[in-house]
């Protein structure tokens, strides 16, 4: 018989998320967000683990992996794939675009050598395009992990990226 083991870290992240947001239908998205925040992404085994732990807590809550995956793939802040150590989020909305966003994206792509949606082979960087970050007054905007950079020009890109190990 094959015994499936769940990574301890995943299991702990799931418990913490359920404890924080409760075991209910309306808590599913907050639970997924929390797991995503704790682990950096939502691994496939986390879906099974969320299902298992929710059933333990509330027997009438019928949740399936497919349902959880459908949520995780719908919301942009949730990732089902492991990302690089640092994530560059680039706002590609019109307000940033007309004040130099287009040139900025080219500079970021050239510096990192990857296209949006890709991760560098050394797993250091992921580049993601995102919708408006709500800091349009200082566009164009780059978000590196949790740091927001405003009024960025293409020649500042190498210097900004060099700050991250």
């Amino acid at each position: 018989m094959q015994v499936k083991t769940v990574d301890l870290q995943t299991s702990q992240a799931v418990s913490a998320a359920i404890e924080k947001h409760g075991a209910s239908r309306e808590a599913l998205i907050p639970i997924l967000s929390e797991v995503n925040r704790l682990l950096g992404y939502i691994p496939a085994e986390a879906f099974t683990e969320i299902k298992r732990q929710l059933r333990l807590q509330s027997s009438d809550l019928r949740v399936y992996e497919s349902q959880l995956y459908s949520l995780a793939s719908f919301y942009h802040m949730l990732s089902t794939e492991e990302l690089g150590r640092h994530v560059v989020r680039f706002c590609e909305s019109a307000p940033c675009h007309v004040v130099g966003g287009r040139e900025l994206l080219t500079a970021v792509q050239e510096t990192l050598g990857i296209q949006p949606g890709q991760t560098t082979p050394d797993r250091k960087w992921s580049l993601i395009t995102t919708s408006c970050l709500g800091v349009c007054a200082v566009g164009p905007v780059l978000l590196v992990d949790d740091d927001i950079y405003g009024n960025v020009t293409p020649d500042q890109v190498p210097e900004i990226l060099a700050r991250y190990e």
Partner: protein
Amino acid sequence: MKTIRSMVIVSGDPVSLQRGASELMQALQKEIKAFDLADEITVAMASDLGRHDALPLVVVYPDAVVYGPVQPSQARLLVEEHLYKGRVAEALLAPVRELSGTIAWLRARKGTLPAEQRIVLRRAGLIDPESIDDYILHDGYQALGKALTTMTPAEVIDEITRSGLQGRGGAGFPTGRKWSFVAGAPGQPKYVICNADESEPGTFKDRLILEGDPHSIIEAMVIAAYAVGASEGYIYIRGEYTLAYQRLEKAIQQAEEYGLLGDDIFGTGFHFKIHIHSGAGAYICGEETALIESIEGKRGEPRARPPYPPTKGLWGKPTLVNNVETLANVPPIIRSGADWYRSFGTPSSPGTKVYTILGNVNNTGLIEVPMGITLREVITIYAQGMRDGRPLKLFQSGGSSGSIAPASLQDTPMDFESFRKAGVSLGSGALLICDDRTCVVDLAKVLMQFFRFESCGKCTPCRVGTQRSYEILTAITEGTARLEDLDELLRLGEAMETLSNCGLGQTAAVPTRDILKHFRAEVEAHIRLGVCPSGVCPMEKAAVPV
């Protein structure tokens, strides 16, 4: 007893924080202690102060002196000169600028400057957003007290109806009517939802209200709940707004402690609870039925309507969904009356509107002005003119789903009715101002890329229409499109507008339609001549014309 004689505000927007605003605040606190002034001077971090040219800013009230950019190492000089010796620290003053958001408003009150009129943002930047006492000191929760103890629910709805308040999320639906639908709908319990899923590109007015004055939203929600008979409320806030989330959480906790939220509010027996629900990144969740689906823990796919939320909303119960800015107008209307509110703006669109000014202008930022001012006024007075003196080519109002309008419309009063007549949508209040270096096809392509990405995929016209339109627009920018493709674009647009299930698909083709209406010659130049007149598009595959 403590008597506060002065208040120091540090700008806490993301750029200021990145430039050391927190360290600056600590340094200021340390120096204030060192000069033994801690009992008479408060230091607080405000959100975005509406001015972005000298961050981090420090504003010292009541004299409203603006310093910036200030380094932590300069905190001693500032405290010693201004707060201890009582004279302005000239060396640290921010560059003089006539109009700068909050600060301009404060000076305008003294009668020195033209009219920014702040109603919903009147406290943002002036009070400590994490202190309920500060909010109460600035007339907070007075409207709630008035509504609960001296007015019937019907009178509250009547006051809102008479004020002429229209929804500020984009559609402009009369707020009073929405409230009366929910009040009259059968079924219990009823819900009040604050739509704080502000994701329209170029719009950040709600973030400023939530970060700068969170209690105003709590107060408004309780008033709304009393009026429509709801017992539970949700604030659906977009996942990226972490600071606003924390401030709301704190505000709710404080309001509960003060008996302004929870059981037996103001001793009247009325009870109301508020939950915060954080989004996870989906533009479509700003659509009210998608938002409701998301709160219920599902994919944010819009429902078929009717039934509308006022009759069947969250968990199938009558639900009131209002935008943040709409709600922020409620307490002032209840406190000062509908007639007072109608003294601002135009007869058909009373009150003020918060605009975000973006694009190729000298000063970007946020203003709250009476309804009915013109874009020309916005550009010359508030934005301080076009950047590099370039000519205005076009503006886009209302974010991605808004309209693209040519420069000739810049003298049309910006209110719901006048814009509707001119075929322009006022939308969420984002004003993207573009000069002659903007290519209309490139702009439409970026906007279509946005819709293609954000379409939830539930209904075919939107899912396929946005993809196909994007492909055609891309072909135009590469120089491979044919003239017939423009007819195809219009046909797709019509199909999306008439057949899509929700507002996203229905408005996704607006930018494309607008550029073909106002800038057809420029679009055709890409195809007929193989050139981009603005020199933006790559056109790498264009055949050389004979």
